[in-house]
């Protein structure tokens, strides 16, 4: 384990930013946001960012190709932007876990090369939580807020930042930072214990997942509670867009007047034109769309991934839903 004094954080960020683009959560007028580091940028103290860290690997809009049409000739141009090396600092345990979930979708055959390239070029530096909040329920999904994954895990103690490499990529980055000092492997134990103690006291930490999983399909699918749960859903896509694990996208062609640009963008199962086919839509009511989202997180995904749930308990949907409907309410209602 390595360490650096908190007073020297700027030095550390400057050294990382010297060779790679560095992004970290910075406070804005309304919540924290991942921002490119520049001299003087201050690391946010917020529990989490408003938008998730998935944007780095799976951006909302991404160019794929363009087509040039001349007479009967069509030329296909690869417009992919090669990912540059970058470092994301301050990722929380929940978001770090979400990368594993995205990996399980995008890095299995056939590999999504756009996503894979970003994953290869990105180094994730996580930061253990010190002030989890009431909307956090990562513990329910087996995530330890005090022991975040990532290429490098970090902990903040009273006066210093502790760093531990978990991967070769992380080790290489740490090795390149000469200002780091050695630290005891047990140096983070006190802060870890403190975090875990708070997590125990969080109101949603003991949210039960017993009623969910790949084998609970028919009981949950046919539940008569979906109607009342979804009755006030507005069919907006806020929950899906702030969610770190929502991974659906749509590929669209844009007619520029002199060619075609093909891009992909986030899609939301809450939308009426989600998975629109020639015959129409498979899910015609909002109840069905609403059910799809939660069934995917709590049943379909675990069914295909050894019981791992597709939610990491970051609580973003709880904060941004316009009508305050969310996965916790859904789970408690379905179980009750």
């Amino acid at each position, binding site marked *: 384990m390595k360490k650096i004094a908190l007073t020297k954080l700027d030095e550390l960020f400057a050294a990382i930013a010297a060779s790679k683009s560095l992004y970290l959560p910075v406070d804005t*007028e*309304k*919540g924290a946001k991942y921002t490119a580091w520049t001299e003087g940028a201050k690391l946010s103290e917020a*529990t989490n960012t*408003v*938008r998730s860290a998935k944007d780095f690997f799976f951006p*909302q*809009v991404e160019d794929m190709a363009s087509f040039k049409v001349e007479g009967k000739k069509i030329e296909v141009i690869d417009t992919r932007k090669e990912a540059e090396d970058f470092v994301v600092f301050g990722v929380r345990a929940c978001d770090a876990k979400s990368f594993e979930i995205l990996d399980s979708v995008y890095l299995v055959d056939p590999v999504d090369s756009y996503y894979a390239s970003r994953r290869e070029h990105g180094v994730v530096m996580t930061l253990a939580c010190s*002030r*989890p*909040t*009431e909307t956090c329920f990562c513990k329910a999904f087996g995530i330890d807020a005090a022991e975040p994954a990532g290429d490098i895990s970090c902990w903040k103690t009273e006066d210093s930042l502790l760093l531990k490499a978990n991967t070769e990529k992380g080790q290489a980055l740490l090795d390149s930072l000469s200002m780091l000092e050695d630290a005891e492997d047990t140096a983070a134990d006190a802060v870890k214990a403190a975090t875990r103690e*708070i997590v125990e*006291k*969080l*109101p*949603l930490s003991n949210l039960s997942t017993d009623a969910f999983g790949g084998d609970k399909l028919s009981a949950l699918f046919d539940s008569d509670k979906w109607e*009342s749960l979804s*009755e*006030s859903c*507005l*069919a*907006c*896509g*806020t929950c*899906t*867009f*702030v969610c770190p694990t929502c991974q659906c996208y*749509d590929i*669209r062609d*844009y007619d520029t007047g002199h060619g075609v640009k093909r*891009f992909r*963008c*986030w*899609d*939301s199962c809450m*939308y*009426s*034109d989600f998975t*629109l086919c020639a015959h129409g839509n498979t899910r015609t009511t909002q109840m069905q769309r609403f059910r799809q989202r939660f069934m995917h997180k709590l049943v379909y995904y675990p069914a295909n991934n050894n019981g791992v749930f597709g939610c990491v308990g970051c609580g973003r949907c*709880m*904060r*941004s839903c*316009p*009508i*305050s*409907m*969310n996965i*916790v*309410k859904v789970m*408690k209602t379905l179980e009750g």
Partner: protein
Amino acid sequence: MQEVMKKRASELLADGTVVRVLGWKNGEFAYDPTPAVFQTVESLEAFVYNDFCASNLSKYLIKFLRQEGKTLVFLKPCDSYSFNQLLTEHRVIRENVYIIGVPCDGKVAEDKLREKGAEGILGIETEGDQIKVKTLYGDLDLNKKECLGERCLSCKSHQVVVFDEMLGENGEENPDCGRFDMVEKLEAMTPEQRFEFWRGELSKCIRCNACRNICPACSCEKCVFDNPASGISQKAAADSFEENMFHIIRAFHVAGRCTDCGECSRVCPQHILLHLLNRKFIKEMNECYGEYQAGAEAGSRAPLVNFTMDDCEPSIIYTKEAGK
């Protein structure tokens, strides 16, 4: 207030006046009630009304337009304007709705509590203007007035404009609310500054459509932006132009129909100041065509579906500014 509302709802359900009640249901925490439909007296157990019941319930009434039976709805002043507007547009049928007006002195915004340091909220108690927030990291005593949602700070009217019965004292209009102050500030800027301001705001948009879907004026069965055949359907703003276009067109489509309920800005997860677009239209229409408040009166004719022979020419926009 909550208990009185619950009691009236139970009575009206029990005597068959209404078949369903549209209200709010308590949430996981003290601050997250959800709009809900209650069909039995027993289910009203979960009914809640507090400082966090901000949702405008009017739009949900469209859903019941084609359903049997009368719906009881609780409308706050803002919501009652929206109701009138929906009535004007024949999106609700007056006879099918039983309206109980509830006075409102502003709703508390969760994010304002967070700004004041309330993280790890375990409980909230309100006593008059005092809000006591119990958190994992200590207790906070906050002033309600300082925690009100942005829209409540420039509330145009405390008056419920349409109701069958009113609980408590009905309020009055508030013409000195200063709701156009920010619009005026923007108008006083140079075009370059305004452009920068709006790029800063609109570039935050993630196109989640929350503003559109919560808007009581956005009541189209199918939005032009969702229609793949329209040629302009978008799922994400793939270019800054599309960010601008979506918000200009949305504001335009509700121009003259927007009652300024402020739901768009309240629900925006990116906190874009969307109400400033709508207020610009309201202000400009007031100046060009005379004062008009959408929803103040059911059946009124909005400025954009009306005209006079001697209306100003569009070029007035340019000369007006030059005159400043």
